[in-house]
């Protein structure tokens, strides 16, 4: 199938397997983006509106809760990028290869 022509592209774009791949990928892509933006701006707004939380003492240590929250924020970023990269490699790589082969792209 020649996907560079308009008709060819329309056929591929409406193929059930392409639609399934596209839908699944869109869910992950937009879902994780929304999660990242929400978590970050939640964190930012918490500083604006509830800075007191950041001063909460944790155990006997000197580090207030704010430090742990900042570290969690950093680990969260690594985790979401890791999850996406893993999904991409494990799941979508194979799905894409199958699709390209099956449709002869």
């Amino acid at each position, binding site marked *: 199938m020649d996907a560079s022509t308009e008709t060819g592209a329309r056929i591929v774009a409406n193929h059930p397997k392409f639609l399934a791949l596209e839908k699944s990928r869109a869910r992950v892509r937009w879902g994780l983006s929304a999660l990242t933006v929400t978590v970050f701006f939640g964190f930012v707004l918490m500083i604006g509106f509830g800075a007191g939380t950041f001063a909460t003492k944790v155990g006997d240590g*000197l580090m207030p809760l704010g430090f742990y929250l900042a570290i969690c924020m*950093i680990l969260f970023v690594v985790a979401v*990028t890791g999850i996406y990269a893993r999904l991409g490699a494990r799941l979508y790589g194979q799905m894409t290869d199958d699709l390209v082969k099956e449709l002869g792209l």
Partner: protein
Amino acid sequence: MRAVAFQRRARGVLAHFIGAGMFTSTINAWAEDLSSVTKHTTGINTTSIAMFLAFVAATLVITWRSSHRTKSASDFYAAGGGITPLQNGFAIAGDFLSAAAFLGITALVYSTGYDGMLYAIGFLVGWPIVLFLVSERLRNLGLYTFADVTSFRLDQRQVRVFSAIGSLTVVAFYLIAQMVGAGKVVQLLFGLDYSIAVIIVGVLTVLYVTVGGMQATTWVQITKAGLLLTGGTLLGLSVLWRFGFNVDRLLAAAVSAHPKGAAILLPGGLFSDPVSAISLGLALIFGTAGLPHILMRFYTVRDAQSARKSVFYAGCFVAYFCLLIPIIGFGAIAVLMNEPSYLSSPTASKITGLIGGPNMAALHLASAMGGSLFFGFMAAVAFATILAVVAGLTLAGASAVSHDLYAKVIADGRASERKEILISKLSAIAIGVTSALLAMLFENQNIAFMVGLALAVAASCNFPVLVMSLYWRSMTTRGALWGGGIGLASAVLLVGLSKTVWVTVFHFKTAVFPYDNPAIISMPLAFLGIWVFSVLDASARGDAERAKFDAQLVRAETGAGRPAAVAAAH
């Protein structure tokens, strides 16, 4: 040991470093304080010079070797697509971890404590967005520049010209800020004259770009990223060692040394006003996904899979750096603030009175922990960082001129590859010369707004046009030009009316626009503009562009049918 040359007044040294204008008022206060600092020992640190010369020699070898492998346009713009994901991860992280990031954010931790950590996090959160929304599709659709992607189904000429304007605006502001920073830092570190420092940076980077293309630029960046991460790790470890690997002991020492006391463990002014905080956050997050020199890196790897992996690696390196910076910053507080010898005078402020200003905190710390050898090493790393980032920016700017403006618009796709590369090299030289001249012109100007403006334009012009062209079927050329144009114009205008320019540069009493960062207004305006003008576009051209979305979607998702970059006969 502290033979930091301090020939001229250090006014404004800090200003350009901490880009987004949030801290400008603090910075100006610093600059004022610094201007009263008297002259200090003028001398040249031989260790740092020797280490820097070793780095330059290594990069010249890299460049010379790369020149043999840089023949086709694909080699020149994209290192022939032969960079591995791990290497590219290093290079992307390197592009991002400029001297501004390393010295500037450490300075922020040194001055304010916890807020410095927050700023670093703002820098980090852009990476997931780049990964999810941009990296793979960009790699599948384009060859050399992000305009390859936006012009896939839109009008070649108009969208190319517009994207080139967006890229060049971002590159220009970023580049001037980096060059001025380079001149000031080199002046402080090596005792060289400001203009000589700027000329050295200009000559070396133009050499890397014109002789070695993307191959050399990438390897210079990888080398520097490796050095920076190694140096940062050593510095962090030495701090932890000093305090028995006990973070509480480190923080206790920092709290007792810092004039602000325990307040350095809590959020201060950075995100305290929610509207400013969101505006800065938007620019930091979405600006990253619109920086041409970062976007260009996705073309240097084999496929979309590799592009995805490289962002993951880059994100990990930047995250590691975000954990390292607070250790270094709090270490600098704990160690340097108890040592009057690091202050410009015994009575000087512990924060602003640091010799060379707070930006030198990381380097003084290196000196305190490992003597002049370590200081020399870190100073050389800081200079190397500037060189590598300036080279990446120069190449991105040169590609926008040669690939987008010349090859695709002026020559209408009929330019020979040789001619295109030649134009690119000439553009690199022109960009190098212009930015060096501008850096000399702006030596004593307050240019704090420039990095902030670069990010705001990237977030309000490049990013909306790119992401909408990738994901929104109904976008047309008209929508892209109007929306992107509105984003660009409003970002520049609002920065002009904000305190950083209106009050600081033009000396008006009060700012017309109350926030330092325009993204909260300019970014939604850009998206709105794209939407309105695309929906209203009932032209036949618009319909044809919408009809091509399926072809773009299939290629973006599968990578099938991407024209192979023409390989030269090696």
